[in-house]
């Protein structure tokens, strides 16, 4: 069996037992990246040398009988929103082109400590804003199932590289569906953990109260393996949860007898593609067959989710992205262009402190800010910065941001009420299978509605998982989503794993992933 056909769980077992070297596993995936990524564009950078060096070091460790980490020899692709000290971290933005952080994100540090092999940084929507990966400054990712279609977003590169077997597992981040939606559109399994379960330190912030890092893989079992390494309290993230990390892989095969899964009839209203509706209903039937009880429930405020999300997320983003001003790092507009009318550039006023007046200096400064940000950010990022800035402005705050916070509390309460009646909530991940590249990119509102089924999970701060539950007649994967109460990741993973033992949707590979003859 080729390393690229193996599950991550089998792969690390083979490396530990000496049946496979880390080097060979890494080479196999690097070879696939080289062969396939020209068509898919899932990676923004590939660290071939670093990956081979790490793999060789792991093999050396094993040879010397030194203890190996739980992910020893496992190639991992990391979304380019996570800081890596040895590779560029760009968030797919011109603003951060070539930026090298001086530190590793906590998740990256945990991966390295677990002896994982980081093969590269994956493409994404700029600053994780988007649901199609078309907002990357470095070109869109192509869906491995149909290269003319979008892989979803914003973790489109992470989803596509796993779907095309260019990496066995990947790290994504999910602010309003950015792990689950591309996982659904690319036919893989992606988990958004409970808010605070995984440290955000070193994740370039989009919307701090919603962002969460999670695993993306081909199966629930592989997600469990990865989550066990990256989850856990981090004293460097004040919002990180202190609750201990359970062994996520330990309980996967316990049957689903007695588990109650909620079904929201409103999910099946107008706008849901019939093929998707059919596959989702089939999945409910499979869960019933596996012993679960399906109960119809109501989420009364769910229809306000997108509106609420598109206030809270842009408000936080408008502030989080203020640091990209050209002053300290990242893109800065050419000084020569700053003051065409005033040769010599800006004039400083001596002896003035912070906020001091100084016409020449200040106007040159403001111009530098404006031009740097105008040049560095793409249109969707600018749109959201403007939305958020507006909604936080004096006179609008109460009508927009403050009201959105109130609705967020109502949505959270919906979940608390629902989880009195059921253990999980099931349903579609997105209304359609993968759409064509360019199909929605001209219509931001249509694009925002792509997040309909996923944003409430983030607003409520609970966990959600997405996995394939069928295919369209055109051969595109269809995703199913399960959501669970806070810290119920073991149940999310167990239910998904049980489903994946009954079905083989998650084993299907796109034609492009087939080995060359």
């Amino acid at each position, binding site marked *: 069996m080729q390393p690229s056909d193996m599950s991550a769980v089998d792969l690390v077992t083979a490396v530990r037992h000496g049946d496979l070297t880390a080097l060979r596993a890494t080479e196999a995936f690097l070879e696939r990246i080289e062969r396939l990524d020209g068509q898919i564009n899932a990676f923004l950078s590939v660290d071939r040398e670093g990956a081979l060096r790490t793999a060789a070091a792991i093999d050396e460790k094993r040879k010397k009988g030194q203890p190996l980490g739980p992910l020893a020899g496992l190639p991992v692709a990391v979304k380019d929103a996570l800081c890596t000290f040895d590779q560029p971290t760009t968030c797919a933005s011109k603003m*951060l082109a070539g930026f090298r952080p001086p530190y590793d994100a906590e998740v990256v540090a945990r991966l390295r400590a677990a002896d994982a092999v980081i093969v590269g940084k994956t493409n994404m929507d700029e600053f994780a804003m988007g649901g199609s990966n078309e907002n990357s400054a470095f070109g869109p990712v192509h869906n491995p199932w149909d290269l003319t279609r979008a892989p979803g977003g914003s973790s489109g590169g992470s989803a596509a590289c796993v779907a095309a077997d260019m990496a066995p597992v990947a790290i994504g981040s999910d602010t309003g569906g950015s792990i689950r939606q591309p996982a659904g559109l690319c036919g893989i399994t992606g988990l958004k953990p409970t808010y605070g379960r995984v440290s*955000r330190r070193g994740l370039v*912030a989009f919307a701090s109260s919603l962002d969460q890092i999670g695993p993306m893989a081909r199966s629930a079992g592989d997600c469990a393996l990865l989550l066990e390494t990256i989850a856990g309290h981090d004293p460097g993230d004040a919002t990180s949860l202190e609750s201990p990390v359970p062994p996520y892989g330990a309980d996967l095969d316990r049957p689903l007898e007695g588990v109650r899964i909620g079904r929201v009839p409103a999910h099946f209203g107008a706008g849901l593609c019939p093929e998707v509706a059919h596959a989702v209903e089939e999945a409910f039937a499979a869960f019933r067959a596996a012993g679960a009880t399906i109960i119809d429930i109501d989420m009364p405020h769910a229809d306000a989710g997108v509106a609420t999300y598109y206030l809270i997320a842009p*408000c936080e983003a408008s502030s989080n992205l203020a640091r990209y001003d050209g002053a300290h*790092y990242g893109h800065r507009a050419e000084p020569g262009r700053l003051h065409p009318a005033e040769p010599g550039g800006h004039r400083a006023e001596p002896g003035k*402190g912070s906020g001091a007046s*100084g016409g020449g200096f200040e106007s040159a400064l403001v111009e530098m800010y404006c031009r740097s940000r105008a040049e560095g950010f793409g249109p969707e990022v600018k749109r959201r910065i403007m939305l958020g*800035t507006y909604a936080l402005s004096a006179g609008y705050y109460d009508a927009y*941001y403050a009201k959105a916070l109130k609705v967020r509390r109502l949505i959270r309460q919906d979940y608390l009420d629902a989880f009195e009646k059921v253990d999980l909530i099931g349903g579609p991940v997105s209304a359609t299978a993968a759409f064509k590249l360019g199909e929605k990119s001209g219509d931001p509102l249509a694009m925002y509605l792509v997040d309909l089924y996923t944003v409430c999970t983030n607003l409520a701060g609970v966990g959600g998982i997405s996995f394939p539950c069928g295919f369209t007649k055109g051969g595109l994967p269809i995703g199913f989503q399960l959501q669970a109460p806070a810290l119920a990741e073991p149940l999310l993973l167990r239910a998904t794993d049980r489903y994946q033992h009954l079905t083989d949707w998650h084993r299907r590979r796109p034609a492009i992933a087939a080995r060359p003859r």
Partner: protein
Amino acid sequence: MTATLTAAVPFTTVIGLEVHVQLQTRTKLFCGCATTFGAAPNTQVCPTCLGLPGSLPVMNRTAFELAVRAALALGCKIAPFTKWDRKNYFYPDLPKGYQISQFDLPFSSQGALEVVDPKGALTRNVRITRVHLEEDAGKSMHDETAGTGDTRIDLNRAGTPLCEIVSEPDLRSPQEARAWLNELKLLLVYLGVSDCNMQEGSLRVDANVNLHIPCDGGRIAKTPIVEIKNMNSFRSVERALVYESARQYEEWQATKAEMGKTPKQTRGWDDPAGVTRAQRHKEESSDYRYFPEPDLVPVTVSEEWLAATREAMGDPPSVLREALAATWKIPPYDADVLVNQGRELVSYFEDLAGRVGEGKVASNWMQQDVLRTLNERGGSIDDFPVRPAAVADIIGRVAKGDFDTSRAREIFAEVLASGRTVDDVVASMGIAAVDDDELISLCRELLAANPRVVADVQGGKEQAAAGLIGQAKKKNPNVNPGKVRAMCLELIRQM
């Protein structure tokens, strides 16, 4: 324009102050970087205080505790629940593009601090609106030496914990404002909250001032409020307020402009020129788009923790003054002088007073000798070479009658200058007690040489005897002037 008003003025000056103090923590408010003053630029920084992508803040608990200590001493209510907010604005010394501060739920509010004046000329209870915590920005240095007018940014200070103390407009004169600031500074230094060093920027003051002018028919005209910035000493604060009151009065006489018709004006104090100058209106920066900081969790304060903090914080100066006056039976004026010099000096005094046994004597020595020479020498009382034991030794010998107070001062000065022991100095200065025989023969000599004095005394002018003391000291520096006087009078009576 006249910058000072000396005579009684035809208006009331209304002043509110905003004071920023840097907390005395080893590390910054939201990261582990050091807060040492004067380090090379940008050497005390990390991803968090540089605002690098992905960095997160974590609250420094010591900073919070120090701030609560200050608020408790100011009699503030401590909120059981407080949160952080982001204040958004762009400036190169603010690397995140926002400052983490507290907006609508500060950790404390509604306190008060009295203006203290032992002479009773100024007494005013000044209400505190709120005390909140925030992080400092970095420093922009506009450097023209390179010819290009570069601006250099030092982010060592970025993220340093600041406590902002906002008073109600309860102060009624520039002198009161200065006295109140002195008391506030003393309090914060006593509690170990801040070193309040204005030169290093550990304490910064902005003042809001306007005038209430009585008009015909009992109406009070209120001039537009002006915020004064850039004052780098308490003296500057007083001068700026004096100047600004006069300026506002002149402007009012010319324009009759009243409050509410124009936006609040900001004026900068130009210390060398002794004037305030209008600063540019910054309309665009007035909307800070405050919203709750999502990277930090709210802070809850328990009653137990508050009680422990209150227990550990020690006495504020106002309590110490009363305690000192009561324990050592010294006048309030003395207690005030001693307490205002800081906690270390009070300890020195208590040590000395304990040895001497008489508070007032010890207090006199503190004020006339220790403090005077300490001020001349500079430095801290803890490094002062003459320790309480030595001073007590000198005072004890005066009490025994070994020598008089002026001789004692010479000894004190010599001990201070030479670093030798009191015994050594006394011996080397040839100071020895003068026995009665010596004294009698000396006085007889003096009386024989001064028949005029003898005649005056016999004529009823006893004070004429004073003229003999100087001569006696010339003949023998060790004689006790009191004894010389008494002996001479006795001998004349016997004549």
